[in-house]
């Protein structure tokens, strides 16, 4: 927790939060760290023991996490993190994060047994149309953390998934197993062998459309790939969804910190809150960031 009592130790307040009431669909809970393990030089996989509403989080939703202070950093705001996996029967919520700045450096210091405050589930997740037979998921970087549970959700609904995972090098592609495990086709494209080049990615997308494997598009993690997918989707009338990021404070629609520009179906510009109206938006309405 980054909130700190500077003053005299005060009576511990007992919050009167009727968390079980149906009107309350978001909660601030204390979860316990089960594991917090680096997956490679940059990314850390955190597994939490959580209860209650947290276990209802869906792919594309996120939590606003209080990151601990360290000797070097005193993160003040919470950090939004997409849910990477929920295993409800085992009370487990998982995250995959990239160590970047003050907040994630703080998270990376958590040890099994430590407690962490988790506000959520927040935002609107991905939605799947039962009419779809096959979808295409295109992700890069930490965007894969957001897309991994979507692929599983699709597989669970009997929807076929082709996942195109883009990264600097093969070593940095995470979660290939998570995607592959649910029986999906996985194509890895990298900067190293130039296969991640937009021209090539476009070629793959066209091939999938032709093959009838692209009833819908999903993307996260790269502005360039989002624009590419949006263009192809518009051209071929493929519906699409994108999970967006924006700096946040509250995560609950209160502060208006997290707005981005969108265009309405009639082409009007509109500001929307990524935390409340998103983070998943229609690909056709998303704009470059």
């Amino acid at each position, binding site marked *: 927790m980054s*909130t700190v009592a500077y003053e005299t130790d005060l009576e511990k307040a007992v919050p009167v939060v009727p968390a079980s009431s149906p009107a309350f669909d978001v909660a601030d809970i204390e979860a316990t760290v089960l594991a917090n393990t680096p997956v490679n030089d940059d990314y850390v996989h955190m597994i939490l023991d959580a209860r209650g509403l947290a276990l209802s989080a869906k792919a594309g939703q996120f939590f606003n996490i209080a990151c601990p202070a360290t000797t070097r950093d005193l993160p003040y705001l919470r950090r939004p993190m997409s849910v990477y996996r929920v295993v409800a029967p085992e009370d487990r919520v998982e995250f995959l994060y990239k160590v970047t700045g003050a907040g994630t450096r703080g998270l990376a210091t958590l040890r099994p047994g430590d407690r962490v405050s988790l506000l959520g589930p927040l935002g609107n997740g991905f939605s799947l149309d039962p009419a779809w037979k096959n979808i295409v998921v295109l992700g890069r970087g930490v965007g894969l953390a957001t897309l991994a549970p979507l692929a599983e959700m699709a597989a669970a609904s009997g929807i076929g998934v082709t996942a195109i995972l883009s990264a600097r090098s093969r070593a940095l592609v995470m979660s290939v197993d998570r995607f592959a495990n649910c029986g999906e086709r996985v194509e890895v494209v990298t900067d190293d062998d130039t296969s991640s080049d937009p021209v090539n990615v476009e070629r793959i997308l066209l091939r999938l459309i032709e093959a009838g494997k692209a009833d819908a598009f999903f993307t996260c993690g790269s502005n360039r790939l989002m624009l590419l997918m949006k263009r192809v989707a518009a051209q071929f009338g493929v519906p699409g969804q994108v999970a967006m990021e924006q700096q946040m404070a509250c995560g609950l*629609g*209160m502060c208006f910190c997290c707005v*981005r520009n969108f265009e309405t179906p009639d082409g009007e510009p509109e500001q929307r809150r990524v935390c409340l109206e998103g983070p998943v938006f229609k690909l056709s309405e998303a704009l470059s960031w």
Partner: protein
Amino acid sequence: MVDLRVKIGSLALKNPVMPASGTFSEGLARIFSFDHLGAVVTKTITAELRGGNPTPRVAEVGQGMLNSIGIPSKGVANFVEHIMPEYERFSAPLVVSVSAPTAELFGDIVRQLNLPGIAAIEANISCPNIEEDGKAFAMRSKSTAAVVRELRCATPLPLWVKLTPNTGDVAAVACAAEENGADALVVANTVLAMSIDIETFRPRLGSIMGGYSGPAIKPIALRMVYQCAKAVEIPVIGCGGIATAGDAVEFMLAGATAVQVGTATFIKPNTMLEVVEGLSAFCARKGIARVSELTGAVKDRGMHVDKLEALP
């Protein structure tokens, strides 16, 4: 049982804890019921439609944040039709924060808000007076007096006036508001500040400067509450960096009758509930029967302010 009730002029509140304007919305009702709050205060609305500021609109700075949200607004009609009904189901009185670019337009907007369901008006006068040199009304006593006079004529509702900490003489501004009919003061809004990204050389906020809030500004807001409470007879509502029941006690001791919790709600959405419970527990432990006894109870008798400090 500690009696948590307080009175802001004619308005009785079940407890002294409420949100600060712009840091609160219906969204928080997904976490707890507003029935537990002393009052609810809306995001500032304006009569004219207003778009938003450029992003980034937020920057984390130490134990606080900068924001440059500004006051995006969909106008009064949208507020009355769509936002107000969201609060109907709660018992907490609804305080509507308003702003306008001239004293006359301030009058216009509050005239439209003389509606059942609205318990008080909070005038956010930390906005520029475009008829003068564009400085915020609350920067000076004269422009404060003018706008409060206009507001007082325009509304029979309890009138709270929210001051800015960026003025050089908050006590004089407080007096000007009181003399012209304010029923209470909210002390204070955000502190104008700035941050620059040393890697990109760019300001961290899309609007270059923005409002500083959170624990970092608490000692400044507390000082202003103390100065204002000494200067006026009307109730002062403390605001700025309050994050714990201890902070609320501190503001009440300095002279506040009630408190507003802002940024802390972003960090810990349950903060207001914890403050309510904590105030009760604090009073119980200290043998204080009524929370209102805390107001102005700071033991400063016989103490003197050093004349060589930079006293405004």
